[in-house]
Protein backbone atom coordinates (compact mmCIF):
# COMPACT_ATOMS: atom_id res chain seq x y z
CA UNK A 1 0.00 0.00 0.00
CA UNK A 2 2.89 2.31 0.74
CA UNK A 3 4.11 1.80 -2.80
CA UNK A 4 1.65 4.29 -4.16
CA UNK A 5 2.69 6.99 -1.74
CA UNK A 6 5.22 8.44 -4.16
CA UNK A 7 2.83 9.63 -6.87
CA UNK A 8 0.77 11.31 -4.19
CA UNK A 9 3.78 13.35 -3.16
CA UNK A 10 4.40 14.29 -6.78
CA UNK A 11 0.84 15.36 -7.09
CA UNK A 12 1.24 17.69 -4.18
CA UNK A 13 4.08 19.48 -5.91
CA UNK A 14 2.20 19.75 -9.16
CA UNK A 15 -0.79 21.10 -7.38
CA UNK A 16 1.18 23.76 -5.61
CA UNK A 17 2.83 24.81 -8.82
CA UNK A 18 -0.30 24.90 -10.86
CA UNK A 19 -2.77 26.09 -8.30
CA UNK A 20 -4.17 29.42 -9.42
CA UNK A 21 -5.38 30.17 -5.91
CA UNK A 22 -1.89 31.21 -4.91
CA UNK A 23 -2.03 33.90 -7.55
CA UNK A 24 -3.13 37.46 -6.81
CA UNK A 25 -6.45 37.52 -8.69
CA UNK A 26 -8.71 35.44 -6.52
CA UNK A 27 -11.65 34.76 -8.74
CA UNK A 28 -14.95 33.62 -7.33
CA UNK A 29 -14.58 30.12 -8.67
CA UNK A 30 -11.15 29.83 -7.17
CA UNK A 31 -12.53 30.83 -3.82
CA UNK A 32 -15.35 28.38 -4.09
CA UNK A 33 -12.95 25.76 -5.16
CA UNK A 34 -10.78 26.38 -2.13
CA UNK A 35 -13.72 26.16 0.22
CA UNK A 36 -14.79 23.04 -1.56
CA UNK A 37 -11.34 21.66 -1.02
CA UNK A 38 -11.39 22.50 2.68
CA UNK A 39 -14.87 21.14 3.22
CA UNK A 40 -14.15 18.03 1.20
CA UNK A 41 -10.97 17.34 3.05
CA UNK A 42 -12.66 17.98 6.38
CA UNK A 43 -15.53 15.69 5.46
CA UNK A 44 -13.19 12.93 4.37
CA UNK A 45 -11.17 13.29 7.53
CA UNK A 46 -14.20 13.31 9.80
CA UNK A 47 -15.42 10.10 8.24
CA UNK A 48 -12.05 8.50 8.75
CA UNK A 49 -12.05 9.82 12.30
CA UNK A 50 -15.51 8.32 12.77
CA UNK A 51 -13.92 4.92 12.31
CA UNK A 52 -11.62 5.61 15.24
CA UNK A 53 -14.50 7.00 17.26
CA UNK A 54 -16.67 3.94 16.68
CA UNK A 55 -13.84 1.60 17.60
CA UNK A 56 -13.08 3.50 20.78
CA UNK A 57 -16.76 3.66 21.67
CA UNK A 58 -17.12 -0.09 21.25
CA UNK A 59 -14.07 -0.75 23.39
CA UNK A 60 -15.16 1.72 26.05
CA UNK A 61 -18.75 0.59 26.41
CA UNK A 62 -18.07 -3.13 26.23
CA UNK A 63 -15.26 -2.70 28.75
CA UNK A 64 -17.40 -0.70 31.17
CA UNK A 65 -20.25 -3.21 30.99
CA UNK A 66 -17.89 -6.17 30.95
CA UNK A 67 -15.95 -5.09 34.00
CA UNK A 68 -19.07 -4.44 36.05
CA UNK A 69 -19.14 -7.97 37.33
CA UNK A 70 -15.75 -7.43 38.92
CA UNK A 71 -16.27 -3.87 40.10
CA UNK A 72 -19.96 -3.89 41.01
CA UNK A 73 -20.70 -7.50 41.88
CA UNK A 74 -17.31 -8.15 43.39
CA UNK A 75 -16.64 -11.40 41.60
CA UNK A 76 -12.92 -12.12 41.39
CA UNK A 77 -11.40 -12.36 37.94
CA UNK A 78 -9.97 -15.71 38.90
CA UNK A 79 -13.27 -17.26 39.84
CA UNK A 80 -14.89 -15.91 36.68
CA UNK A 81 -12.23 -17.21 34.33
CA UNK A 82 -11.47 -20.46 36.11
CA UNK A 83 -14.76 -21.28 37.78
CA UNK A 84 -16.55 -24.33 36.44
CA UNK A 85 -19.83 -23.66 38.21
CA UNK A 86 -22.42 -21.58 36.43
CA UNK A 87 -25.37 -21.05 38.73
CA UNK A 88 -26.18 -17.37 38.45
CA UNK A 89 -29.67 -18.00 39.85
CA UNK A 90 -28.60 -19.91 42.95
CA UNK A 91 -29.77 -17.99 46.02
CA UNK A 92 -27.16 -16.56 48.37
CA UNK A 93 -28.27 -18.94 51.10
CA UNK A 94 -27.07 -21.94 49.09
CA UNK A 95 -23.65 -20.55 48.34
CA UNK A 96 -24.54 -17.49 46.36
CA UNK A 97 -24.76 -16.99 42.64
CA UNK A 98 -21.84 -18.61 40.85
CA UNK A 99 -20.62 -17.30 37.54
CA UNK A 100 -17.70 -19.41 36.43
CA UNK A 101 -17.23 -19.09 32.71
CA UNK A 102 -14.48 -21.68 32.34
CA UNK A 103 -16.64 -24.31 30.65
CA UNK A 104 -17.68 -21.83 28.01
CA UNK A 105 -14.16 -20.52 27.51
CA UNK A 106 -12.94 -24.08 27.08
CA UNK A 107 -15.79 -24.76 24.67
CA UNK A 108 -14.95 -21.73 22.53
CA UNK A 109 -11.23 -22.49 22.48
CA UNK A 110 -11.70 -26.17 21.69
CA UNK A 111 -14.20 -25.74 18.92
CA UNK A 112 -12.23 -23.01 17.16
CA UNK A 113 -8.84 -24.69 17.53
CA UNK A 114 -10.14 -27.96 16.15
CA UNK A 115 -11.78 -26.13 13.28
CA UNK A 116 -8.52 -24.42 12.39
CA UNK A 117 -6.61 -27.68 12.72
CA UNK A 118 -8.90 -29.34 10.24
CA UNK A 119 -9.16 -26.40 7.91
CA UNK A 120 -5.52 -25.27 7.65
CA UNK A 121 -3.99 -28.18 5.69
CA UNK A 122 -6.81 -28.15 3.16
CA UNK A 123 -6.57 -24.37 2.84
CA UNK A 124 -2.84 -24.43 2.19
CA UNK A 125 -3.26 -27.19 -0.38
CA UNK A 126 -5.99 -25.29 -2.17
CA UNK A 127 -4.15 -21.98 -2.12
CA UNK A 128 -1.02 -23.61 -3.55
CA UNK A 129 -3.21 -25.24 -6.17
CA UNK A 130 -4.71 -21.92 -7.13
CA UNK A 131 -1.40 -20.15 -7.45
CA UNK A 132 1.07 -22.81 -8.58
CA UNK A 133 -0.59 -25.89 -10.00
CA UNK A 134 -3.41 -24.56 -12.10
CA UNK A 135 -3.57 -20.78 -11.99
CA UNK A 136 -6.02 -20.41 -14.86
CA UNK A 137 -8.41 -22.98 -13.52
CA UNK A 138 -7.94 -21.65 -10.02
CA UNK A 139 -8.76 -18.15 -11.12
CA UNK A 140 -11.79 -19.04 -13.14
CA UNK A 141 -13.38 -21.73 -11.00
CA UNK A 142 -11.96 -21.80 -7.50
CA UNK A 143 -11.83 -18.05 -6.91
CA UNK A 144 -15.57 -17.55 -7.49
CA UNK A 145 -16.32 -20.74 -5.60
CA UNK A 146 -14.47 -19.45 -2.57
CA UNK A 147 -16.21 -16.11 -2.77
CA UNK A 148 -19.57 -17.85 -2.77
CA UNK A 149 -18.48 -20.02 0.14
CA UNK A 150 -17.58 -16.84 2.00
CA UNK A 151 -20.91 -15.31 1.11
CA UNK A 152 -23.14 -18.08 2.46
CA UNK A 153 -24.71 -16.63 5.62
CA UNK A 154 -23.71 -18.21 8.90
CA UNK A 155 -27.25 -19.16 9.82
CA UNK A 156 -27.43 -21.18 6.63
CA UNK A 157 -24.30 -23.04 7.70
CA UNK A 158 -25.96 -23.55 11.05
CA UNK A 159 -29.14 -24.79 9.46
CA UNK A 160 -27.31 -27.29 7.25
CA UNK A 161 -25.42 -28.46 10.32
CA UNK A 162 -28.61 -28.80 12.29
CA UNK A 163 -30.73 -30.47 9.65
CA UNK A 164 -28.10 -32.74 8.15
CA UNK A 165 -24.90 -33.06 10.18
CA UNK A 166 -26.48 -33.45 13.62
CA UNK A 167 -28.86 -36.28 12.65
CA UNK A 168 -26.00 -37.91 10.72
CA UNK A 169 -23.79 -37.89 13.80
CA UNK A 170 -26.66 -39.10 15.97
CA UNK A 171 -27.32 -42.09 13.74
CA UNK A 172 -23.67 -43.03 13.40
CA UNK A 173 -22.57 -42.51 16.98
CA UNK A 174 -23.80 -45.89 18.14
CA UNK A 175 -26.87 -44.69 19.98
CA UNK A 176 -25.40 -44.41 23.46
CA UNK A 177 -27.54 -41.45 24.29
CA UNK A 178 -25.58 -39.19 21.97
CA UNK A 179 -27.87 -36.65 20.45
CA UNK A 180 -25.65 -35.53 17.63
CA UNK A 181 -25.37 -32.04 19.03
CA UNK A 182 -21.67 -32.06 19.68
CA UNK A 183 -18.24 -30.56 19.59
CA UNK A 184 -17.75 -32.55 16.39
CA UNK A 185 -20.70 -30.92 14.65
CA UNK A 186 -19.53 -27.51 15.85
CA UNK A 187 -16.04 -27.68 14.53
CA UNK A 188 -17.00 -29.37 11.27
CA UNK A 189 -19.36 -26.50 10.51
CA UNK A 190 -16.77 -23.94 11.54
CA UNK A 191 -13.99 -25.52 9.54
CA UNK A 192 -15.98 -25.07 6.35
CA UNK A 193 -16.92 -21.53 7.33
CA UNK A 194 -13.32 -20.41 7.79
CA UNK A 195 -11.98 -22.11 4.64
CA UNK A 196 -12.44 -19.04 2.42
CA UNK A 197 -10.67 -16.73 4.88
CA UNK A 198 -7.61 -18.93 5.21
CA UNK A 199 -7.47 -19.83 1.52
CA UNK A 200 -7.71 -16.31 0.17
CA UNK A 201 -5.14 -14.83 2.57
CA UNK A 202 -2.68 -17.66 1.93
CA UNK A 203 -3.20 -17.46 -1.82
CA UNK A 204 -2.53 -13.74 -1.77
CA UNK A 205 0.76 -14.22 0.01
CA UNK A 206 1.79 -16.98 -2.37
CA UNK A 207 0.98 -14.75 -5.32
CA UNK A 208 3.13 -11.99 -3.89
CA UNK A 209 6.29 -14.13 -3.87
CA UNK A 210 8.91 -13.08 -6.41
CA UNK A 211 8.87 -15.40 -9.41
CA UNK A 212 12.65 -15.79 -9.43
CA UNK A 213 12.61 -17.90 -6.29
CA UNK A 214 10.54 -20.54 -7.91
CA UNK A 215 12.58 -20.39 -11.09
CA UNK A 216 15.82 -20.66 -9.17
CA UNK A 217 14.61 -23.68 -7.25
CA UNK A 218 13.37 -25.37 -10.41
CA UNK A 219 16.61 -24.55 -12.21
CA UNK A 220 18.55 -26.24 -9.42
CA UNK A 221 16.73 -29.42 -10.34
CA UNK A 222 14.06 -29.56 -7.66
CA UNK A 223 10.73 -31.03 -8.55
CA UNK A 224 7.63 -28.88 -8.32
CA UNK A 225 6.65 -30.57 -5.07
CA UNK A 226 10.09 -29.87 -3.58
CA UNK A 227 9.90 -26.27 -4.68
CA UNK A 228 6.51 -25.87 -3.11
CA UNK A 229 7.45 -27.64 0.08
CA UNK A 230 10.93 -26.20 0.61
CA UNK A 231 10.72 -22.76 -0.97
CA UNK A 232 7.29 -21.41 -1.63
CA UNK A 233 5.28 -22.44 1.42
CA UNK A 234 8.05 -21.51 3.88
CA UNK A 235 8.51 -18.19 2.12
CA UNK A 236 4.79 -17.47 2.31
CA UNK A 237 4.44 -18.60 5.88
CA UNK A 238 3.80 -15.10 7.21
CA UNK A 239 0.75 -14.82 5.02
CA UNK A 240 -0.37 -18.34 5.79
CA UNK A 241 -0.09 -17.76 9.53
CA UNK A 242 -2.00 -14.51 9.13
CA UNK A 243 -4.75 -16.38 7.32
CA UNK A 244 -4.87 -19.06 9.99
CA UNK A 245 -5.09 -16.50 12.78
CA UNK A 246 -7.84 -14.66 10.92
CA UNK A 247 -9.67 -17.95 10.53
CA UNK A 248 -9.22 -18.65 14.21
CA UNK A 249 -10.62 -15.21 15.03
CA UNK A 250 -13.64 -15.83 12.86
CA UNK A 251 -14.24 -19.25 14.39
CA UNK A 252 -13.86 -17.91 17.92
CA UNK A 253 -16.38 -15.15 17.38
CA UNK A 254 -18.96 -17.08 15.36
CA UNK A 255 -22.21 -17.24 17.25
CA UNK A 256 -25.32 -18.60 15.63
CA UNK A 257 -24.02 -21.36 13.39
CA UNK A 258 -22.22 -22.83 16.36
CA UNK A 259 -25.06 -22.29 18.78
CA UNK A 260 -27.39 -24.26 16.56
CA UNK A 261 -25.31 -27.45 16.52
CA UNK A 262 -23.26 -27.77 19.70
CA UNK A 263 -26.04 -28.69 22.09
CA UNK A 264 -25.24 -26.01 24.65
CA UNK A 265 -24.20 -27.94 27.73
CA UNK A 266 -22.11 -26.21 30.35
CA UNK A 267 -19.71 -29.05 30.87
CA UNK A 268 -16.16 -29.84 29.96
CA UNK A 269 -16.50 -32.21 27.02
CA UNK A 270 -15.08 -35.67 27.61
CA UNK A 271 -15.36 -36.79 24.04
CA UNK A 272 -15.69 -35.33 20.60
CA UNK A 273 -19.34 -36.35 20.66
CA UNK A 274 -20.16 -34.46 23.84
CA UNK A 275 -22.20 -31.33 23.64
CA UNK A 276 -20.46 -28.11 24.65
CA UNK A 277 -21.22 -24.46 25.16
CA UNK A 278 -19.30 -21.49 23.84
CA UNK A 279 -19.09 -17.88 25.00
CA UNK A 280 -21.04 -16.71 21.98
CA UNK A 281 -23.83 -19.23 22.41
CA UNK A 282 -24.15 -18.36 26.10
CA UNK A 283 -24.58 -14.71 25.18
CA UNK A 284 -27.15 -15.31 22.48
CA UNK A 285 -29.21 -17.68 24.60
CA UNK A 286 -29.33 -15.78 27.86
CA UNK A 287 -29.18 -12.10 26.92
CA UNK A 288 -32.92 -11.70 26.55
CA UNK A 289 -33.78 -13.59 29.71
CA UNK A 290 -31.76 -11.48 32.06
CA UNK A 291 -32.32 -8.07 33.57
CA UNK A 292 -29.94 -5.36 32.40
CA UNK A 293 -27.50 -4.63 35.16
CA UNK A 294 -28.13 -7.78 37.17
CA UNK A 295 -25.18 -9.98 38.00
CA UNK A 296 -26.22 -12.65 35.54
CA UNK A 297 -26.48 -10.07 32.80
CA UNK A 298 -23.14 -8.54 33.73
CA UNK A 299 -21.52 -11.95 33.43
CA UNK A 300 -22.75 -12.13 29.83
CA UNK A 301 -21.24 -8.75 29.08
CA UNK A 302 -17.97 -9.94 30.55
CA UNK A 303 -18.07 -12.81 28.06
CA UNK A 304 -18.52 -10.19 25.35
CA UNK A 305 -15.46 -8.44 26.74
CA UNK A 306 -13.49 -11.68 26.53
CA UNK A 307 -14.48 -11.96 22.87
CA UNK A 308 -13.33 -8.37 22.31
CA UNK A 309 -10.02 -8.96 24.06
CA UNK A 310 -9.48 -12.14 22.08
CA UNK A 311 -9.98 -10.30 18.81
CA UNK A 312 -7.35 -7.74 19.91
CA UNK A 313 -5.09 -10.58 20.78
CA UNK A 314 -5.51 -12.07 17.31
CA UNK A 315 -4.79 -8.74 15.63
CA UNK A 316 -1.68 -8.19 17.72
CA UNK A 317 -0.52 -11.70 16.88
CA UNK A 318 -0.93 -10.97 13.20
CA UNK A 319 0.96 -7.71 13.48
CA UNK A 320 3.74 -9.43 15.35
CA UNK A 321 3.96 -12.21 12.81
CA UNK A 322 4.03 -9.76 9.93
CA UNK A 323 6.69 -7.64 11.62
CA UNK A 324 8.93 -10.60 12.31
CA UNK A 325 8.35 -11.88 8.81
CA UNK A 326 9.53 -8.59 7.37
CA UNK A 327 12.68 -8.44 9.47
CA UNK A 328 13.80 -11.86 8.27
Amino acid at each position, binding site marked *: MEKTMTPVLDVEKIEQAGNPVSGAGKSLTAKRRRYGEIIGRGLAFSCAAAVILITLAIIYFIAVKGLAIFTVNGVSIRSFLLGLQW*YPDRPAAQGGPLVGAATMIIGSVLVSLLAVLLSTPLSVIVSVFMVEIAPGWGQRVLQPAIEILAGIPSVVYGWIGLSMLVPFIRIHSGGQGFTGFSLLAGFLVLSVMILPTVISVSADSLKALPGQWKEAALALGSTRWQTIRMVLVPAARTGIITGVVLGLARAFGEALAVQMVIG*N*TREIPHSILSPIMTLTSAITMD*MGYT*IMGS*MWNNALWSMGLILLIMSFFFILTIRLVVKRGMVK
Partner: protein
Amino acid sequence: MGKKTKWMLVAACVLALVVALAGCGNQNQPKQSPQQSSGGQAEVSGSVTAVGSTALQPLVEQAATQYMSKNPKAQIVVQGGGSGTGLSQVAQGAANIGDSDIFAEEKSGLDASQLVDHRVCVVAMTCVVNPGVTVGNLTTKQLQDIFTGKVTNWKQVGGPDQKITVIHRPKGSGTRATFKKFALDGVEETAPGMEQDSSGTVRKMVAETPGAISYLAMSYVDKTIKAIKINDVEPTVDNVIAGKYPVWSYEHMYTKGEPTGLAKAFLDYMVGPDVQDQLVSKMGYIPITQMKVERDAQGKVTQK
Protein backbone atom coordinates in the same frame (compact mmCIF):
# COMPACT_ATOMS: atom_id res chain seq x y z
CA MET B 1 -22.85 15.02 9.08
CA GLY B 2 -23.79 11.59 10.34
CA LYS B 3 -23.83 12.89 13.85
CA LYS B 4 -26.20 15.73 13.15
CA THR B 5 -28.73 13.48 11.50
CA LYS B 6 -28.44 11.09 14.36
CA TRP B 7 -29.12 13.78 16.90
CA MET B 8 -31.99 15.02 14.85
CA LEU B 9 -33.39 11.54 14.80
CA VAL B 10 -32.98 11.29 18.54
CA ALA B 11 -34.72 14.61 18.95
CA ALA B 12 -37.54 13.49 16.66
CA CYS B 13 -37.97 10.35 18.69
CA VAL B 14 -38.02 12.19 21.98
CA LEU B 15 -40.60 14.54 20.54
CA ALA B 16 -42.72 11.66 19.32
CA LEU B 17 -42.51 10.02 22.71
CA VAL B 18 -43.51 13.22 24.48
CA VAL B 19 -46.47 13.64 22.14
CA ALA B 20 -47.46 10.04 22.67
CA LEU B 21 -47.20 10.34 26.43
CA ALA B 22 -49.14 13.57 26.37
CA GLY B 23 -51.77 11.78 24.33
CA CYS B 24 -51.99 9.09 26.96
CA GLY B 25 -52.01 11.60 29.76
CA ASN B 26 -54.91 13.50 28.28
CA GLN B 27 -57.10 10.50 28.63
CA ASN B 28 -56.75 10.48 32.33
CA GLN B 29 -60.44 10.93 32.77
CA PRO B 30 -62.12 9.69 35.92
CA LYS B 31 -61.91 5.93 36.13
CA GLN B 32 -64.21 5.20 33.30
CA SER B 33 -62.71 2.00 32.12
CA PRO B 34 -63.57 1.28 28.51
CA GLN B 35 -66.22 -1.33 27.95
CA GLN B 36 -64.93 -4.83 27.45
CA SER B 37 -66.25 -5.37 23.99
CA SER B 38 -65.47 -2.69 21.51
CA GLY B 39 -69.07 -1.73 20.82
CA GLY B 40 -69.76 1.96 21.08
CA GLN B 41 -66.88 2.96 23.31
CA ALA B 42 -65.06 6.25 23.08
CA GLU B 43 -62.21 6.11 20.65
CA VAL B 44 -58.83 5.34 22.15
CA SER B 45 -55.73 6.80 20.63
CA GLY B 46 -52.06 7.06 21.40
CA SER B 47 -49.18 4.67 21.20
CA VAL B 48 -48.12 1.85 23.49
CA THR B 49 -45.10 -0.41 23.33
CA ALA B 50 -45.16 -3.91 24.77
CA VAL B 51 -41.77 -5.62 25.02
CA GLY B 52 -40.62 -8.93 26.39
CA SER B 53 -41.40 -12.62 26.62
CA THR B 54 -41.11 -14.42 23.33
CA ALA B 55 -43.56 -17.04 24.62
CA LEU B 56 -46.27 -14.45 25.11
CA GLN B 57 -45.40 -12.37 22.07
CA PRO B 58 -47.58 -14.22 19.53
CA LEU B 59 -50.68 -13.78 21.66
CA VAL B 60 -50.05 -10.11 22.35
CA GLU B 61 -49.29 -9.54 18.69
CA GLN B 62 -52.54 -11.13 17.58
CA ALA B 63 -54.53 -9.30 20.22
CA ALA B 64 -52.89 -6.02 19.29
CA THR B 65 -53.73 -6.53 15.63
CA GLN B 66 -57.36 -7.21 16.46
CA TYR B 67 -57.48 -4.27 18.83
CA MET B 68 -55.99 -1.88 16.33
CA SER B 69 -58.39 -2.92 13.62
CA LYS B 70 -61.19 -1.92 15.97
CA ASN B 71 -59.46 1.24 17.19
CA PRO B 72 -57.65 2.60 14.16
CA LYS B 73 -56.17 5.51 16.10
CA ALA B 74 -54.43 3.31 18.60
CA GLN B 75 -50.89 2.15 18.03
CA ILE B 76 -49.59 -0.90 19.83
CA VAL B 77 -46.06 -1.96 19.04
CA VAL B 78 -45.17 -5.45 20.20
CA GLN B 79 -41.55 -6.52 20.50
CA GLY B 80 -39.89 -9.70 21.68
CA GLY B 81 -36.52 -9.88 23.34
CA GLY B 82 -37.21 -12.09 26.34
CA SER B 83 -38.75 -11.64 29.77
CA GLY B 84 -35.62 -10.05 31.23
CA THR B 85 -35.60 -7.42 28.51
CA GLY B 86 -39.30 -6.74 28.99
CA LEU B 87 -39.02 -6.29 32.73
CA SER B 88 -35.96 -4.08 32.60
CA GLN B 89 -37.42 -1.92 29.85
CA VAL B 90 -40.69 -1.36 31.64
CA ALA B 91 -38.85 -0.65 34.90
CA GLN B 92 -36.70 1.92 33.11
CA GLY B 93 -39.75 3.42 31.49
CA ALA B 94 -38.47 2.55 28.03
CA ALA B 95 -41.56 0.49 27.33
CA ASN B 96 -45.16 0.90 28.52
CA ILE B 97 -45.77 -2.78 29.04
CA GLY B 98 -43.27 -5.49 29.92
CA ASP B 99 -44.25 -9.04 29.01
CA SER B 100 -42.87 -11.71 31.30
CA ASP B 101 -43.13 -15.46 31.83
CA ILE B 102 -42.43 -15.18 35.53
CA PHE B 103 -43.21 -12.90 38.44
CA ALA B 104 -41.07 -9.77 38.52
CA GLU B 105 -40.26 -10.66 42.14
CA GLU B 106 -38.48 -13.76 40.91
CA LYS B 107 -35.98 -11.88 38.77
CA SER B 108 -32.94 -10.60 40.58
CA GLY B 109 -31.67 -7.11 39.98
CA LEU B 110 -35.07 -5.53 39.66
CA ASP B 111 -37.18 -3.34 41.88
CA ALA B 112 -40.48 -5.17 41.54
CA SER B 113 -42.39 -2.93 43.94
CA GLN B 114 -43.01 -0.22 41.36
CA LEU B 115 -44.37 -2.65 38.79
CA VAL B 116 -48.03 -3.55 38.55
CA ASP B 117 -48.83 -7.09 37.50
CA HIS B 118 -51.52 -7.92 34.93
CA ARG B 119 -51.95 -11.65 34.41
CA VAL B 120 -53.35 -12.46 31.02
CA CYS B 121 -53.21 -16.22 30.69
CA VAL B 122 -51.80 -19.46 32.05
CA VAL B 123 -49.28 -21.79 30.52
CA ALA B 124 -48.83 -25.34 31.78
CA MET B 125 -45.73 -27.52 31.52
CA THR B 126 -45.70 -31.25 31.00
CA CYS B 127 -42.90 -33.62 31.83
CA VAL B 128 -42.23 -35.72 28.74
CA VAL B 129 -40.16 -38.81 28.02
CA ASN B 130 -39.20 -40.96 25.08
CA PRO B 131 -42.05 -43.36 24.19
CA GLY B 132 -39.74 -46.29 24.92
CA VAL B 133 -39.74 -45.43 28.60
CA THR B 134 -42.34 -47.56 30.33
CA VAL B 135 -42.59 -45.33 33.38
CA GLY B 136 -45.88 -43.46 33.37
CA ASN B 137 -45.76 -41.64 36.66
CA LEU B 138 -43.04 -39.95 38.65
CA THR B 139 -43.16 -38.53 42.13
CA THR B 140 -41.64 -35.19 42.99
CA LYS B 141 -38.83 -37.01 44.75
CA GLN B 142 -38.08 -39.16 41.71
CA LEU B 143 -38.12 -36.10 39.45
CA GLN B 144 -35.73 -34.34 41.79
CA ASP B 145 -33.40 -37.33 41.74
CA ILE B 146 -33.45 -37.47 37.96
CA PHE B 147 -32.90 -33.76 37.44
CA THR B 148 -30.15 -33.55 40.03
CA GLY B 149 -28.35 -36.53 38.54
CA LYS B 150 -28.80 -38.84 41.51
CA VAL B 151 -30.74 -41.29 39.41
CA THR B 152 -29.14 -41.98 36.06
CA ASN B 153 -30.90 -45.13 34.91
CA TRP B 154 -34.58 -45.69 34.32
CA LYS B 155 -34.55 -48.97 36.21
CA GLN B 156 -33.93 -47.03 39.41
CA VAL B 157 -37.40 -45.55 39.10
CA GLY B 158 -39.10 -48.71 37.89
CA GLY B 159 -38.42 -48.50 34.19
CA PRO B 160 -36.29 -50.40 31.69
CA ASP B 161 -32.54 -50.71 32.08
CA GLN B 162 -31.72 -47.60 30.12
CA LYS B 163 -29.57 -44.54 30.63
CA ILE B 164 -31.48 -41.35 31.39
CA THR B 165 -30.68 -38.43 29.08
CA VAL B 166 -31.79 -35.15 30.62
CA ILE B 167 -32.56 -32.28 28.28
CA HIS B 168 -32.78 -28.95 30.06
CA ARG B 169 -34.29 -25.70 28.92
CA PRO B 170 -32.05 -22.63 29.11
CA LYS B 171 -31.46 -21.21 32.55
CA GLY B 172 -33.45 -18.06 32.84
CA SER B 173 -36.25 -19.27 30.62
CA GLY B 174 -39.69 -19.10 32.18
CA THR B 175 -40.32 -22.74 31.29
CA ARG B 176 -37.34 -23.88 33.32
CA ALA B 177 -38.12 -21.59 36.23
CA THR B 178 -41.68 -22.90 36.41
CA PHE B 179 -40.64 -26.52 36.17
CA LYS B 180 -38.00 -26.09 38.83
CA LYS B 181 -40.36 -24.35 41.19
CA PHE B 182 -43.43 -26.53 40.91
CA ALA B 183 -42.28 -29.91 39.62
CA LEU B 184 -38.98 -30.08 41.49
CA ASP B 185 -40.08 -28.07 44.52
CA GLY B 186 -37.32 -25.57 43.93
CA VAL B 187 -34.49 -28.07 43.86
CA GLU B 188 -31.71 -26.97 41.55
CA GLU B 189 -31.27 -29.10 38.42
CA THR B 190 -27.63 -30.08 38.52
CA ALA B 191 -27.84 -33.15 36.30
CA PRO B 192 -25.55 -32.83 33.29
CA GLY B 193 -27.45 -32.38 30.09
CA MET B 194 -27.80 -30.05 27.19
CA GLU B 195 -29.77 -26.85 27.24
CA GLN B 196 -32.16 -26.64 24.37
CA ASP B 197 -34.16 -23.50 23.69
CA SER B 198 -36.59 -24.60 21.05
CA SER B 199 -39.72 -26.51 22.01
CA GLY B 200 -39.73 -28.09 18.59
CA THR B 201 -36.19 -29.36 18.97
CA VAL B 202 -36.86 -30.62 22.47
CA ARG B 203 -39.85 -32.57 21.27
CA LYS B 204 -37.87 -34.04 18.40
CA MET B 205 -34.93 -34.95 20.59
CA VAL B 206 -37.10 -36.59 23.22
CA ALA B 207 -38.86 -38.53 20.49
CA GLU B 208 -35.61 -39.70 18.93
CA THR B 209 -33.27 -40.19 21.88
CA PRO B 210 -33.90 -43.40 23.86
CA GLY B 211 -34.25 -42.68 27.56
CA ALA B 212 -34.63 -38.93 27.14
CA ILE B 213 -36.59 -36.79 29.57
CA SER B 214 -37.49 -33.12 29.36
CA TYR B 215 -40.47 -30.82 29.72
CA LEU B 216 -42.61 -28.83 27.33
CA ALA B 217 -45.51 -26.45 27.27
CA MET B 218 -48.66 -28.61 27.43
CA SER B 219 -49.97 -27.45 24.08
CA TYR B 220 -46.85 -28.78 22.50
CA VAL B 221 -47.18 -32.42 23.52
CA ASP B 222 -48.11 -34.78 20.69
CA LYS B 223 -48.09 -38.49 19.93
CA THR B 224 -44.38 -38.74 19.23
CA ILE B 225 -43.57 -38.34 22.92
CA LYS B 226 -45.02 -39.56 26.16
CA ALA B 227 -46.45 -37.28 28.83
CA ILE B 228 -45.73 -38.29 32.42
CA LYS B 229 -48.07 -37.99 35.37
CA ILE B 230 -46.61 -36.14 38.29
CA ASN B 231 -47.60 -37.55 41.69
CA ASP B 232 -50.37 -39.45 39.90
CA VAL B 233 -51.95 -36.32 38.51
CA GLU B 234 -52.59 -36.33 34.79
CA PRO B 235 -51.32 -33.21 32.99
CA THR B 236 -54.55 -31.92 31.49
CA VAL B 237 -56.06 -28.49 31.09
CA ASP B 238 -58.92 -29.42 33.43
CA ASN B 239 -56.53 -30.46 36.17
CA VAL B 240 -54.66 -27.18 35.80
CA ILE B 241 -57.87 -25.16 35.97
CA ALA B 242 -59.00 -27.05 39.05
CA GLY B 243 -55.66 -26.48 40.70
CA LYS B 244 -54.77 -30.17 40.87
CA TYR B 245 -51.83 -30.14 38.50
CA PRO B 246 -49.24 -27.73 39.88
CA VAL B 247 -46.78 -27.15 37.05
CA TRP B 248 -48.12 -24.01 35.44
CA SER B 249 -47.37 -20.33 35.46
CA TYR B 250 -48.99 -17.06 34.57
CA GLU B 251 -48.08 -14.95 31.61
CA HIS B 252 -47.69 -11.44 32.92
CA MET B 253 -47.90 -8.00 31.42
CA TYR B 254 -46.31 -5.49 33.75
CA THR B 255 -46.77 -1.74 33.80
CA LYS B 256 -44.85 0.80 35.81
CA GLY B 257 -47.48 2.15 38.15
CA GLU B 258 -51.16 1.80 37.37
CA PRO B 259 -51.75 1.92 33.61
CA THR B 260 -53.65 4.78 32.06
CA GLY B 261 -55.13 5.59 28.70
CA LEU B 262 -54.40 3.22 25.88
CA ALA B 263 -52.22 0.91 27.99
CA LYS B 264 -55.11 0.40 30.38
CA ALA B 265 -57.63 -0.03 27.58
CA PHE B 266 -55.44 -2.61 25.89
CA LEU B 267 -54.79 -4.54 29.10
CA ASP B 268 -58.51 -4.62 29.73
CA TYR B 269 -58.98 -5.91 26.22
CA MET B 270 -56.43 -8.66 26.90
CA VAL B 271 -58.56 -10.06 29.73
CA GLY B 272 -61.83 -9.36 27.94
CA PRO B 273 -63.90 -11.99 26.13
CA ASP B 274 -62.52 -11.21 22.67
CA VAL B 275 -59.08 -12.40 23.69
CA GLN B 276 -59.80 -14.82 26.52
CA ASP B 277 -62.60 -16.81 24.91
CA GLN B 278 -61.10 -17.14 21.47
CA LEU B 279 -57.49 -16.22 20.95
CA VAL B 280 -56.04 -17.63 24.15
CA SER B 281 -57.02 -21.25 23.74
CA LYS B 282 -56.53 -21.10 20.00
CA MET B 283 -52.89 -20.28 20.66
CA GLY B 284 -52.37 -23.00 23.22
CA TYR B 285 -52.70 -21.10 26.47
CA ILE B 286 -55.27 -21.51 29.23
CA PRO B 287 -57.62 -18.54 29.71
CA ILE B 288 -57.02 -16.70 32.97
CA THR B 289 -60.76 -16.23 33.35
CA GLN B 290 -61.34 -19.99 33.70
CA MET B 291 -58.82 -20.58 36.46
CA LYS B 292 -60.44 -21.70 39.70
CA VAL B 293 -57.32 -21.07 41.72
CA GLU B 294 -54.98 -18.18 42.14
CA ARG B 295 -51.31 -18.14 42.95
CA ASP B 296 -49.03 -15.41 44.23
CA ALA B 297 -45.36 -14.76 43.62
CA GLN B 298 -44.41 -16.98 46.55
CA GLY B 299 -46.29 -19.87 45.01
CA LYS B 300 -49.13 -19.84 47.54
CA VAL B 301 -52.31 -21.17 45.96
CA THR B 302 -55.74 -19.93 46.98
CA GLN B 303 -59.17 -20.87 45.69
CA LYS B 304 -60.77 -18.11 43.72
